[in-house]
């Protein structure tokens, strides 16, 4: 298990920021490049996110989520804010989870549980969730891409996300 880096950051320990970068810089960069139009914007966004993580570190509660999930939540929040602010459309490339990424999921109890819950979803529901969260498509775009009615897309996303939320809550991590 990773040492609690966010605790070090919150208490202002020397070297904590470098440790944060080493542990979660890649995660932040991955999300930033997915949401942003170019490398320069992704760099700005990464800095913005890491500042937010730094500022929010005291709020981290290990009973609610793993550090990685917390950092990803802050990152997505900042990126969604940026995206909505400039009201632009994002065209994302499909990303397949790598073997290494899946292996690392087992390091985090909440992510393992979430992964399990996602695997239980019907394939079409899983795909809609992935298009929404990873590909960052709007519900309208998903309906168009999959040929499914908008109402179905909306209800599948709601159901899927709330199932995951329930799994995290019941497991004591949300």
């Amino acid at each position, binding site marked *: 298990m990773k040492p609690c880096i966010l605790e070090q950051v919150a208490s202002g320990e020397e070297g904590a*920021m*470098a440790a944060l*970068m080493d542990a979660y*810089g*890649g*995660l*932040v*960069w*991955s999300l930033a490049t997915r949401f942003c139009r170019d490398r320069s914007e992704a760099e700005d966004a*990464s*800095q913005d996110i*890491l*500042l*937010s993580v*730094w*500022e*929010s*570190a*005291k*709020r981290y509660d290990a009973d*609610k*989520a793993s550090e*990685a*999930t*917390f950092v*990803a*939540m*802050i*990152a*997505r*929040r900042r990126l969604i*804010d940026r995206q*909505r*602010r400039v009201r632009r459309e994002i065209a994302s490339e499909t*990303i397949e*989870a*790598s073997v*290494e*990424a899946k292996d*690392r999921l087992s390091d*985090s109890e*909440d992510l393992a549980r*979430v992964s399990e819950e*996602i695997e239980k979803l019907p394939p079409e529901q899983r795909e809609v*969730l992935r298009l*929404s*969260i*990873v590909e960052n498509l*709007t*519900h309208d775009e998903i309906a168009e891409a999959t040929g499914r009615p908008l109402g179905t897309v*909306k209800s599948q*996303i*709601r159901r*899927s*996300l*709330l199932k*995951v*939320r329930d799994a*995290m809550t019941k497991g004591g991590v*949300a």
Partner: protein
Amino acid sequence: MSDALNRLEQMVDAYFGEASGMAFDVAHGDEFESIELAAAACDLAMSDALATQMPSDVRSKVLDAMLDLEARRSEETTDALPMSSVPTVVTTRSRFAISGWVAAAALLLIGTATIMLRNTGPMTLPEFQNAYADIETATWSDWDNPELAGVTGTVYWSESAQKGYMTFTGLDVNDPKVEQYQLWIIDERGLSQRISGALFNCDGSQISVPIEPGIEVHDAAAFAVTIEAPGGTWVSDMSRRVVIASLGG
């Protein structure tokens, strides 16, 4: 469908930007955050984010910028900041821990905001209603276990004028030496920023108060009132809640 499930489903819609005028992040902070955490966990589970490395040149650049800000943090002090009548921008996260560099950024924003402040005196409510064609209204309701329940009234907001008015009935008379009411405006930026719109007192059973944020509001979504220490605050923890009103909500 239960109210709780319906509310959660609306929160999911709001999270994905499929519902406007919602302010669940403020009204139901913990529940909304549980949706955000679930989405973040799904992202990590379905993508390669955990396996990605930040390029070394980007790492150096970002780390240098962070350390620079950290260095500046030790040079800044926040205690001398006057709060009264100064418009504020407060990030949600800073309610838990505001750092010196955040204060420095806030100082810059205040400088800008002060320049942007309009010099006109406040209008009366009827004058305000006659002056602008794009006034939207929203009614107050109790805000998630409020300290004062049953307060009613209306918010009037003109996006073009960047100002508004609010009325209250049933607000407790406050002692300004002990506490004051503060209005927060939540705009399209949601959790990332909320804007102080007024610091005010209640001296009667019915009052009306002008709303004059010092910085630009982008598509106001909700208005919320808290009770704060005299002079207001940069970093409300939103623990002393009173009322909330959502435009279009």
